């Protein structure tokens, strides 16, 4: 199954891909487009990817999780234009025990954020847009008032 899709994500469909009567514990994670970032009002986002590598990296992450825990994992990431409230990423992990389902699900979302070559551009209410850089320091608006030396 490809990981990238330009269609809306569907949690039930993802869960159906991994659950079975032998794997009765299913953990999922959904990441939804938020309406604010660095204190600015986000209208919509545009996700783009290095498609071939993103698919390869998603497949690697899923196999790593399935090797590390006795689980089945499904992962989808949406690309293109998304509105506030749309799901951008969904993960489902099913195992015989809840612990391994949670652990695998969490591993996958952390690795997706760290490794999958996807970028997003935010369109703000004021008409401007900017590429999101999760490694950047928050803008002044988000920083505590005092930037001076801590006593």
């Amino acid at each position, binding site marked *: 199954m490809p990981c990238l899709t330009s269609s809306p994500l569907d949690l039930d469909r993802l869960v159906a891909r991994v659950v079975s009567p032998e794997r009765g514990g299913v953990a999922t994670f959904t*990441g939804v487009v938020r309406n604010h970032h660095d204190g600015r009002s986000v209208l919509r986002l545009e*996700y*783009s*990817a*290095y498609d*071939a*590598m*993103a698919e*390869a*990296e998603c497949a690697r992450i899923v196999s790593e999780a399935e090797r590390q825990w006795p689980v089945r994992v499904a992962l989808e*990431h949406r690309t293109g234009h998304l509105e506030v409230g749309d799901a*951008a*990423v969904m993960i489902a992990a099913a195992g015989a025990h809840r612990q391994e389902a949670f652990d695998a699900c969490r591993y996958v*979302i952390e690795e*997706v*954020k*760290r*490794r*999958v*070559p*996807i*970028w*997003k*551009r935010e369109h703000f209410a004021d008409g401007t847009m900017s*590429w*999101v*850089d*999760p*490694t*950047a320091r928050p803008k002044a608006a988000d920083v505590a008032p005092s930037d001076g030396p801590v006593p």
Partner: protein
Amino acid sequence: MSSSSHSTPPASAASITVEVLVFAKLAELLGQTSLRVTLPAPTTVGDVRDAVLASGPGLERLTPALAFAVNRAHTTADAPVVDGDEVALLPPLAGG
């Protein structure tokens, strides 16, 4: 993958041509999403990056933020590249 498997040629005896893919803010600043770069052998991912960033004014400031892939797998600036490799310069990832 298109990585050739010949052994490293003697230095200065050959040149290496790679396809470079750029994304997001870097693609915007360069005005393109891919370019072809030729450098004297042997060469590294970091050398390819330096050549690309030298092609536009002020691009060097992006250096600390970039990550790298060769043939669709993450790698580091000191990794060697060979003729025909697909090298990607990755601005900070923002998936998930």
